[in-house]
């Protein structure tokens, strides 16, 4: 029996992750329906940077997964109809003291040994990169495979591609309840009526835990707020993404030698030139619930940090600021997983500061899991079970 509101695969969430799942899923022949409570790309995926990075990934599984995703994005840039400001110039990290330079050398060695395209940069290289850099910067490193996109155009572009393969996209459709009926179908109650489905993918980013709760599943994701300021185009400060080495430390929770305020808000420099030739300067890292207000003090710290690395931009103009919520997990890896207790329920969320980078591989993996084909990368490190492992062991 099939009625009009029955769907094969329902994806909840219309951010970049939902977009990539809808695209690769429908391209593989799956019948995909997306429910988004607001507009497409209205969550974190329009309140972020657009860096597609391997430079900040742990050598090994993380960097290999990032590299796979970069290759997919490179293909998507010719495969999708709507351009999304793809620029593959590589990215660099800069060091402000000897301690960082030493750590950078180690990082480059490890990455090279893992087969990635990394190299060290000296003062001369930095000077050639941008004449706006502070003179006292010691050097840095470069990752050649990194690229940049416009994150919301990328999201739109993937959804347009998905529609062409037949995906149904419902915006302003909020999932308010989710359970399994006796026929083992999912019942999905929305503000636009009730649907049933064979499979459900939870791609709700920082809101994924609320969907989990509807099925009594604990999804350990927390919002980690990040703020960005936008500088207007005046002079080209650089053409590719630049981060301070301290970003790595800040991301993974290590100790840095910086002002207490900078430390408190987890501010580390990220400079991303956009195709419109403005540049985005970020960012901060804070656990502060679900609020996304622009905080003046944090904005000051970000500007302060920018001037430390680029003293000559002091008279350039900041025109805008915004804040988004990174879907954080304890081990900084996303959850891309089936849920054993609930056959047919999948989670694709928790990408923290890497959702744009890892969207493509995430979409591909979920497609492969649903179609039960070989996965592009091993999926054990991404399973929901990893968080409950200690619990399971006690039952052994």
């Amino acid at each position: 029996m099939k009625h009009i509101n029955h769907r094969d695969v329902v994806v909840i969430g219309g951010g970049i992750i939902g977009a990539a799942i809808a695209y690769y899923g429908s391209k593989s022949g799956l019948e995909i329906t997306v429910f988004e409570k607001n507009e497409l790309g209205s969550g974190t995926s329009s309140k972020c940077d657009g860096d597609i990075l391997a430079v900040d990934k742990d050598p090994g599984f993380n960097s290999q997964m990032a590299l796979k995703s970069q290759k997919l994005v490179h293909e998507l840039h010719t495969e999708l109809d709507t351009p999304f400001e793809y620029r593959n110039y590589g990215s660099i990290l800069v060091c402000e003291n000897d301690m960082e330079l030493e750590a950078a050398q180690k990082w480059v060695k490890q990455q090279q040994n893992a087969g990635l395209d990394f190299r060290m940069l000296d003062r001369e290289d930095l000077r050639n990169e941008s004449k706006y850099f502070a003179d006292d910067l010691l050097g840095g490193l470069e990752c050649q495979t990194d690229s940049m996109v416009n994150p919301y155009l990328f999201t739109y572009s993937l959804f347009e591609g998905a529609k062409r393969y037949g995906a149904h996209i419902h915006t302003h459709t909020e999932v308010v309840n989710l359970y399994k009926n006796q026929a083992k179908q999912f019942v999905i109650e929305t503000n636009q009526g009730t649907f049933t489905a064979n499979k459900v993918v939870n791609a709700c980013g920082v809101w994924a835990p609320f969907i989990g709760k509807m099925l009594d599943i604990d999804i350990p994701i927390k919002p980690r707020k990040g703020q960005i300021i936008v500088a207007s185009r005046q002079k080209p400060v650089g053409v590719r993404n630049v981060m301070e080495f301290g970003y790595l430390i800040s991301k993974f929770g290590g100790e840095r030698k910086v002002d207490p305020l900078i430390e408190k808000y987890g501010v580390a420099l990220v400079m991303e030139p956009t195709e419109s030739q403005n540049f985005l300067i970020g960012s901060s890292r804070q656990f502060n619930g679900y609020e996304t207000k622009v905080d003046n003090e944090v904005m000051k710290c970000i500007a302060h940090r920018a001037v430390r690395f680029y003293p000559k931009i002091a008279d350039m103009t900041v025109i805008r600021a915004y804040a988004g919520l990174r879907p954080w997990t304890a081990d900084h890896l996303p959850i891309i997983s089936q849920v054993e207790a609930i056959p047919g329920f999948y989670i694709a969320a928790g990408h923290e500061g890497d959702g744009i980078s890892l969207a493509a591989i995430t979409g591909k993996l979920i497609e492969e899991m649903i179609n039960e084909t070989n996965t592009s990368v091993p999926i054990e490190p991404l399973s929901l079970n990893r968080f409950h492992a200690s619990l399971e062991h006690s039952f052994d």
Partner: protein
Amino acid sequence: MNENVMIICRCEEVTYHELVSTATKYKCSARELKLRTRAGMGYCGGRTCRTMVEKIAQSMGTNTPTETNISLKVQPPIRPVSFENLGRISK
């Protein structure tokens, strides 16, 4: 003046024609129209063109007014400010 070449967003040089054709093609909200064309995303923060952009989205019948459409809101800084002045941290 030909309304097709009439500039609605001066900072980003977005024409009336570009706005109308984008709104027609994607049947999108004011927010999406802004993100797709960059109208209102320039130096003045949309102070000059915000209402026009919203009107164009509405006249295409694409801007279903719901509470989520308030995203053309103004975010701090209220006025453009230099890095130097913004980045001054009192110690």
